[in-house]
């Protein structure tokens, strides 16, 4: 079956994603035609804890996985026999959460006698842009910003990445969560800060921009501390102004370094990925900076920035075409790196 498997424009892939707090399934044809995309979010389940609780997440994934897969197939309006392959996130992420998706995906592949392909979640975030613009030209610089990651990556070709820079402490999304919690703006922090900042003045407080002229790495823990110290000393300053000023500081650093990276590698454009890529300030600032430099700014729609399974299916399509299926005896890789993606191929 798998040896003569040809991956083409009519190849239909079922993508599955369970690495953190979203149970997602999608049907994607030809690597970029999103036929259906279903995301069941656990935000409400985790809100009372102010963060993702791994055991709670794993339980919710097991409850949702089959209904979500069923809905993705139903909404696509296809017969399940039309599915050519199953792609699923195998890492990085929460081990117990990943294992629900991997187990389910391998079972579906076995029952329907189609290939299974393990996908790196970070790589999938890069592919979210290709879902909307399959004609993107290399080399590209990818700014991947989420609750777990803040990275600048050079994408030289499909499957060829070079890590240019990363956070040395907190991820940008983590800083959003912590500051939102401190300001009592709610959970998750990204959208909460974004909303509050809408009504605030981004120049009200000049928070530090760490490591601006210091290579392509990031640091966000000092910024979080600066916010806490400022609020302690100035309890009367409106929290919307704090939120707007904090958000501006994060955006300034991210955009500055992304543009610097793009100039260094001669990129045709900057691709934005990860949950923080939904932030409206960051999107606007990056777009303006890219326009000023005369290069492309590729910003996937908000629903494609946050965790979803369409990007998993898209990455799976490319991986299947380049490397073939994964073995059915692989498990999950909780701290899987993006570069030298450690999936056992066979």
């Amino acid at each position, binding site marked *: 079956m798998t040896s003569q498997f040809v991956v083409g424009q009519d190849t239909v892939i079922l993508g599955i994603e369970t690495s953190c707090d979203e149970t997602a399934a999608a049907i994607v044809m030809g690597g970029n035609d999103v036929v259906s995309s279903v995301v069941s979010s656990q935000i409400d389940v985790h809100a009372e*804890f102010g963060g993702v609780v791994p055991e709670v997440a794993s339980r919710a994934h*097991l409850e949702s996985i089959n209904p979500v897969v069923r809905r993705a197939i139903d909404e696509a309006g296809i017969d399940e026999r039309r599915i050519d392959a199953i792609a699923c996130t195998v890492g990085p992420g929460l081990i117990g959460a990943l294992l629900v998706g991997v187990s389910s995906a391998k*079972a579906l592949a076995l029952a329907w006698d189609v290939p299974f392909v393990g996908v790196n979640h970070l790589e999938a975030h890069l592919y979210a842009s290709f879902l909307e613009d399959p004609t993107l030209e290399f080399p590209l610089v990818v700014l991947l910003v989420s609750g777990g990651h803040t990275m600048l990556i050079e994408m030289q070709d499909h499957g060829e990445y070079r890590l240019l820079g990363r956070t040395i402490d907190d991820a940008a999304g983590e800083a959003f969560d912590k500051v939102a919690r401190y300001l009592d703006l709610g959970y998750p922090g990204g959208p909460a800060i974004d909303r509050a900042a809408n009504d605030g003045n981004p120049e009200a407080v000049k928070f530090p921009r760490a490591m601006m002229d210091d290579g392509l790495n990031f640091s966000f823990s000092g910024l979080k501390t600066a916010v806490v110290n400022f609020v302690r000393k100035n309890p009367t300053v409106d929290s919307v102004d704090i939120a707007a000023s904090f958000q501006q500081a994060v955006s300034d650093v991210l955009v500055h370094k992304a543009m610097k990276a793009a100039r260094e590698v001669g990129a045709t454009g900057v691709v934005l990925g990860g949950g923080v890529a939904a932030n409206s300030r960051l999107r606007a600032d990056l777009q303006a900076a890219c326009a000023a430099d005369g290069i492309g700014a590729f910003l996937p729609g908000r629903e494609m920035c946050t965790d979803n399974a369409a990007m998993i299916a898209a990455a799976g399509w490319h991986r299947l075409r380049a490397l073939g299926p994964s073995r059915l*005896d692989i498990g999950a890789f909780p701290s899987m790196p993006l570069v030298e993606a450690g999936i056992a191929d066979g």
Partner: protein
Amino acid sequence: MIVLGIESATESVGVSLASSDGVLASVEISRGRRHAESIVPCVQFVCERAEIELAEVGAIAVDVGPGLFTGMRVGIATAKSLAMALGIPMVPMTSLEVLAIGQSTADEIIVPVVDARKSEVFWAMYRRSEQGVDQLNQPTVGPVDDLISDLMARDQPTVCIGDGAHRYRDDITTGFSCVIGDARHPSAADLASEGVRRAIRDETVEERFVEPVYLRQPDAQINWSTRQVRS
């Protein structure tokens, strides 16, 4: 009626195929704890060896716990997705039930005890019957002392089995005079065989109604330092 049994609620993982003729093929791995890696290859192996196509399987029996959360979830997710994809019903059984069914004693009370970690155990009491075993009380979780109190309250000849009975053998036999049976882990062959009997009696359920039996709330303490990668 051919039934595929998937067992992964404790440290052991097993897959078995059974029919009304008995067990057709069975594999058990009690070392390594690589449940997610092993189950699907084990399913392929038993099908190949028994020369059975998955399409011939009429129902999936699965151990729904209680046990190790991650291990049991891997088995349940695999079993439920297989059942959904194949369009066949399921036979869910608790780990305690599967252990009890495998105990070939006649008169004693059968008490499967599954290690619940954190100095606790899962247990329930069974008595052999015409149809297999009758459950005498609801499965519970608690410290070994609670199990001993439970045994003393019933005060009948008893055989305790399962990894919890072995781990706390000294505590249990000091507190209450009983036999510790050989069985450590629920057997996939027992699960599949009992699955056949129940499937023949039409005691199957739809895949969407099969749920894990955790018997314990998640440890919901946020510890920022151990919070894992989120992306």
